[in-house]
């Protein structure tokens, strides 16, 4: 499984049509400790760049965007009680939502790990 990245600091990891999405370590550092994470309801249709979730620090709320088009298919419910999981393991246990992507090829237009690192 390859992980792709967006300029708005999300990552997406695709397994067939199912993908999980989170925020990068860089984004997590910038946001600081999170106090609340919430995704839109399962079944919500999203276009690439649509707000699909929100993460909140003490001071600010930030939208998390769908990297590609699809339908939201799940939320990391562990984050309801433990939003700091995102900061502790942003690209692993701290994933935020699942989605069924409309076209798995869409991810190839995103950034590779190397491209994201060089931003």
């Amino acid at each position, binding site marked *: 499984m390859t992980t792709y990245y967006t300029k708005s600091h999300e990552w997406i990891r695709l397994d067939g049509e199912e993908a999980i999405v989170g925020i990068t370590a860089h984004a997590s550092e910038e946001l600081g400790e999170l106090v609340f994470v919430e995704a839109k309801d399962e079944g919500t249709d999203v276009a690439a760049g649509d707000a699909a979730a929100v993460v*909140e620090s*003490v001071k600010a709320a930030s939208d998390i965007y769908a990297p590609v088009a699809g339908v939201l298919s799940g939320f990391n419910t562990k984050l309801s009680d433990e939003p700091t999981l995102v900061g502790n393991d942003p690209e692993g246990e701290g994933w935020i939502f699942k989605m069924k992507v409309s076209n798995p090829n869409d991810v190839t237009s995103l950034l590779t790990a190397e491209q994201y690192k060089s931003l």
Partner: protein
Amino acid sequence: MTDSLQRTPLHALNLELGAKMVPFAGYEMPLQYPVGLMAEHLHTRSKAGLFDVSHMGQIRIAARNGDVRDAALALESLIPADYAGLAKGRQRYGFLTNDAAGILDDLMVANMGDDLFVVVNASCKEQDAALIEAALSDRCVVTRQFDLALMALQGPQAQEAIAPLCPAAAEMRFMDVIETELAGVSVTLSRSGYTGEDGYEIGCAAADAETVARALLAQPQVLPIGLGARDSLRLEAGLCLYGNDIDTTTTPIEASLAWAIQKARREGGSREGGYPGAEIVLRQVREGVSRKRVGLMAEGRAPVRAGAKLFADAEGQKEIGLVTSGAFGPTVQAPVAMGYVATDYADNDTVLFAELRGKFVPVHVRAMPFVAPGFKR
């Protein structure tokens, strides 16, 4: 960062400490230091934090006849507080009002014996000084001291941290102000702050600021704290942020700040009224107001923030107010906010609904502060 931003006397130290700098009120200011907002907030509530607040404006007002009471009486023509009755070495909160009883700024005024020492908000300082000069210059010499440094040391261990550098600090009570020496530097020291904790505010010459800051940061209890935590600390303490919670569209009575208008300035008092908008304020005290600033706590963990509309019903049909400040309270471990609501809905424990991302979240009207104050009375 644009070149037009001003820097505080502690700029180099802030960078050395790894501060994330942001533009604020025309200054390049530390938003947070490497440990981050959450840790800074909790540290201030448990030990002591040092804040660079040199962007705030310090003004001195001396009466031309040499009598500080005359300066106080002159200042009372702009502010509803009792300053003529303020004892030497004491400080008192107040606000400048306009003819519509709107709040132009909120500030602290201290009686220094020979003159008044005034601290105003950064974003208002030029305008405040101009207003005070225009109104008082015939009776007073008004001196802008905007080049001075100002720091705040806040937290339950503030006294422990400052006492080795300034023994006199330990003897002060909340709202006392003295001229003294700290780490060999001449300072204007008040036992006050903007966090709800015990603590001090320290004014000194720009050239001495780093000496003072480094001496305090060398104390084991003290960490540097940024503007981010300053905001969440003051919100938990129920304190207004000028420009958010109070401004020219809010009156002191609507803002639930009637406590800052002492008896002498109220109806029947020895110096009743006599400030811009006084008739409106006196009438509002007598007859009540249609909206009031209240504390709010949302259910769940999602913060309800400034700008969120408040409704009487869960369907968002009847709009009755607006949130003016909101965040997650790190000490309370829950969302905390304040805002204005129609007076019928302002009683504690009233359940309202805040619009949050298209949903309506129950919020409870709550007494402020949200944390127990730690002042040394």
